[in-house]
């Protein structure tokens, strides 16, 4: 499910903006809409713990009921490891919800921050260090 961000999510958005520096230290994240984060829920298809940036492939059911893969780009493995996240933090089948910054183009892609991802039961994927 893809949702527009509600005011209650402003705090999450602020966390996202604050953490963006680490993610964009490699290159500009200008292709992602940092001004208008959205919430998505879905099932982890694959978590690629690769350089230069990790990739989270999330199966997301749209309002029309069609499931599409979303490609979410995150921080470098070297940054995530030092934030307490590993290649095993997410595995296929995990149900999560995340606040992400979508691609400006409208395609199924965006950027994610570890602190803005929670499992379905509300447990954070990682804790702030």
């Amino acid at each position, binding site marked *: 499910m893809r949702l527009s961000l509600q005011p209650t999510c402003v705090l999450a958005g602020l966390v996202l903006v604050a953490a963006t520096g680490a993610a964009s230290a490699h290159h500009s994240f200008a292709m992602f809409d940092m001004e208008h984060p959205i919430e998505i829920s879905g099932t982890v298809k694959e978590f690629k713990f*690769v*350089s230069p940036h990790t*990739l989270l*492939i999330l199966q997301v059911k749209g309002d029309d009921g069609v499931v599409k893969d979303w*490609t979410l780009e995150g921080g*470098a493995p*070297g940054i995530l490891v030092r934030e307490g996240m590993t290649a095993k933090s997410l595995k296929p089948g995990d149900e999560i919800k995340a606040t992400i910054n979508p*691609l*400006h183009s*409208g395609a199924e892609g965006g950027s994610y921050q570890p602190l803005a991802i929670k499992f379905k039961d509300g447990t954070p994927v990682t804790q702030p260090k």
Partner: protein
Amino acid sequence: MLFKSMICFIALGSAVIAGPAAAQQPFDESRYPAFAGQWQNTGRLGVFDQTKPPGRGQEAPLTPEYQAIFEANLAEVAKGGFGDDPVYNCIPEGMPRATTLVLPMEIVVTRNTTYVLMEYLSMLRRIYTDGRDFPTDEDPSWMGYSIGKWVDPDASGRYTALEVETRNLKNPRTFDPSGLPVHKDGETIVKERFYLDKDNPNILHDEITVYDHALTRPWTVLKNMKREPKPIWVESICGEGNVHVNIGGQHYMLNGDGELMPAMKDQPPPDLKHFNQTKK
């Protein structure tokens, strides 16, 4: 006669063996500052001047010509592009951008060369301290050619700092991910001074001055790093999973299946004129 010849031969042989050995004093590690270990950036990430915000906030002393180039780059970035930043395409950061230290670095001091091993993109700096001069016939490289000099200001026999000059740099490079430009002539000169904080030996400073024809004056910044007591290292190979590609001057993003996605709104698809597009 035979005896004299043998003595002469032995003496000569000893001289040949002892010559190079005598010229090389034992490497006394205690004479050098304790640079060994893992160093992490303590300032703002992704900017050249760690004390200032990115983009225009860096207040780089650009010439009017290069300010215009930077503004055009920012306009491209505002539309969702990468502008002039070459690193998204796995080009190494090069100098001086590598000193923004996205990920930690390690310093290894040896007799004639000090190595700076950077985790990010597996970049390597060799700083020659053997008294050599800059080569005149070497091809430029992104990390450049670095010559260092150990400094012993009070002649105590112990070095307190390493001064480094880096030249012979290859383009394309930028100061940081925002696309802050260096001059296209590739004549950037980077001068650095590495030294430990006088009050805390686990803090490393790198005072950097960049001389570049895109600048109206030399640009000096101070980088601060902390020593990580329990270092971990993570391999960083850019080609492993980079999803950003440039085709015909357009930046696109690959999805999880390796398919092309537009990165910017209303972006045209790539030109497929070299493909047989006969419908099946």
